[in-house]
């Protein structure tokens, strides 16, 4: 495998890791506050549909993004209602939200567009298009000399290849997602809000008796989770792909959840975990690469299951023990 192929695979990994990373950080806020969220998938899916639909109607990807965030936040509020206000089972609530999104997106898509549960394809400003960073070789340069972009990059020096292929040419949401990592770290470990958020996931009674509202904190975390799921969903339908198709999240919410466990609920680890899982997904698209490198012919079906299999291996604790926030999954009930 040559350097350029490697860069291409890594480039795809970054693209595929982005929704995982956003969803993973979304889950991180929720679970750090003590609310387990297996409804990341549903929130992403709803956001993907509403972003695509609104981007299609408005022709503006940013309005689509807002709509997606709104949709994910509505589902997040339902989760908050069930798991915080009514102290219900958080897992069951998550399951319900996943189904609600799976059903509602198709119903709404069918009702609005009548194209068998999809939105019409998005074009131009209705999508988040790749950004060319300064000094990178991109489509503009290729158009100027009227040659294919791939040729230009192939001829460039390795540093330029690295910069143009891997660093440049992503949509703004990719860079945003990467920035979310240090932002989350800072928020969690350097601010009052972060201290309280982490505390409420460890011992809500301590927060309550310290005069801080457990309910408010958990809602804040759940809503932050909704916002990030919204961005993740919008990225899927308006950046990674051009439009919504039924069930387009395809288990990403669950992979993000697995990445969260793998990352031991830490933002920087989450980045690495998601990049790793993104790499798996990228390789799934290019089974020939593995074959070339390892000489083993891999079954595509089994390669598709690889992230899930690895997740189970991770969960089994053979790769370090993952200890969740102590109060996670437990509704807070003042003792009698």
């Amino acid at each position, binding site marked *: 495998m040559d350097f350029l192929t490697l860069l291409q695979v890594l480039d795809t990994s970054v693209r595929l890791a982005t929704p995982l990373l956003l969803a993973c950080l979304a889950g991180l806020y929720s679970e750090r506050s003590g609310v387990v969220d*297996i409804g990341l998938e549903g929130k992403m899916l709803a956001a993907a549909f509403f972003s695509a639909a609104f981007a299609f109607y408005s022709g503006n990807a940013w309005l689509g993004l807002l709509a997606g965030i709104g949709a994910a936040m509505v589902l997040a509020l*339902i989760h908050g*209602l*069930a*798991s915080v*206000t*009514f*102290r*219900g*089972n*958080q*897992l*069951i*609530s998550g*399951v*319900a*939200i*996943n*189904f*609600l999104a*799976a*059903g*509602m997106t*198709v*119903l*709404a898509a*069918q*009702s609005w567009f*009548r194209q068998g*549960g999809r939105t019409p394809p998005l074009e131009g400003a209705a999508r988040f298009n790749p950004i060319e960073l300064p000094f990178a070789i991109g489509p503009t340069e290729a158009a100027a000399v009227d040659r294919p972009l791939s040729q230009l990059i192939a001829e460039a020096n390795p540093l330029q290849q690295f910069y143009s292929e891997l660093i440049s040419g992503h949509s703004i949401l990719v860079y945003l997602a990467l920035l979310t990592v240090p932002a989350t770290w800072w928020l969690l470990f350097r601010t009052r809000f972060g201290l309280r958020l982490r505390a409420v996931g460890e011992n809500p009674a301590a927060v309550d008796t310290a005069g801080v509202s457990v309910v408010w904190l958990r809602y804040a975390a759940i809503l932050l989770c909704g916002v990030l799921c919204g961005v993740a969903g919008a990225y899927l339908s308006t950046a990674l792909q051009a439009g919504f198709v039924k069930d387009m999240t395809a*288990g990403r919410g*669950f992979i993000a*959840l*697995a990445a969260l*466990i793998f990352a031991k609920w830490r933002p920087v680890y989450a980045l690495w975990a998601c990049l790793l899982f993104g790499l798996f997904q990228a390789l799934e698209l290019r089974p020939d690469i593995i074959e070339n490198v390892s000489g083993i012919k891999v*079954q595509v*079906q*089994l390669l*598709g*299951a690889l992230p*899930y*299999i690895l*997740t*189970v291996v991770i*969960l*089994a*604790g053979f790769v370090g023990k993952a200890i969740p926030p102590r109060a996670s999954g437990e509704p807070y009930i003042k003792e009698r």
Partner: protein
Amino acid sequence: MDKMPKWADIVLIPIISLLLAAFFSALVILAIGENPVEALKLMIDGALMRSAGWGYTLYYATNFIFTGLAVSVAFHARLFNIGGEGQAMVGGLGVALVCLYIPWPHWSLAILGASVGAALFGAAWAYLPAVLQAKRGSHIVITTIMFNFIAAALLNYVLVEWLRPIGAMDPASAKFPGATHLPSFQDMFSTADTPMFRGAPANVTFFLALVACVVVWMLIWKTRLGYEIRAFGQSETAAKYAGISPVRITVIAMLISGALAGMMSVNTTMGESERLILNSTEGAGFIGIAVALMGRNHPFGVLLAAILFGFLYQGGAELALWTSIPRELIVVIQALVILFTGALDNMVRAPLEKVFIALRRRNV
């Protein structure tokens, strides 16, 4: 004192939750520009007013009884088996192998063999998540979700690479031999003059499902194992004190759960399609969650809830046929039922408890 009488807990709360789910479903139907009353009429008409409709309703109900019981048994051990879907898929593989490779003389023997195959394969698929939960503390909800995806990949692989007849295009096994054909309701109940359940897929497996209800009921409430499962589900620390091994109970409860989920495919794979196809489970494993919640983890409740969901499924198919409402409406209703009977249980319960306490005060 309990806060409210038992009947309110068992009957009233599920009914209120169901009405809430129905109300929101009606809103959804209104929102997509259809008439909910008309829709309900269509559903009842298509699912309940003709014997063929019942034939479909009960066919679906059979699936949901198995998956509902599967989720219930695990719930009794406080395990949330969200992997019924994968276990049913792999159970289907068991059915297919038994039907394809063993020369059965008669369907009555074949169904027993297929049940064993389905149960074993389904249980096997639940085994690893169970062991990981019991011994390594890997959260069973996450692992069973992952196992659903892995099962789908596995089944795809097996069908494409192994079981697909040479020259065939679609990923499906060969047709099962004729001796494994299960009598359908049409075969059983039609007379020469009055055809019944014409063309409907309901078959003798329905009675197997009824037997499963009785067996699960006996197991949970009448046997030592059931006692241990319930005790463990209520309190792990107490179970340890009593000498009940958490590892053993976790594994056994999940094996039973997986076996029940797997047995669903006797109905779909052997009873209906008569060959193994890619997506024979059609989400029935997940509907088991709604059925178990709604049926309060009691086999009789599961039976009723399964029939209700069978009705919704068949009715939903009718709707998709005659109106512009897609079948996914059922997924929404299912979500709402899970939401109201499961996650938002306290929303319904708390005001009711207040009412009962107030009533009791007045009576005192």
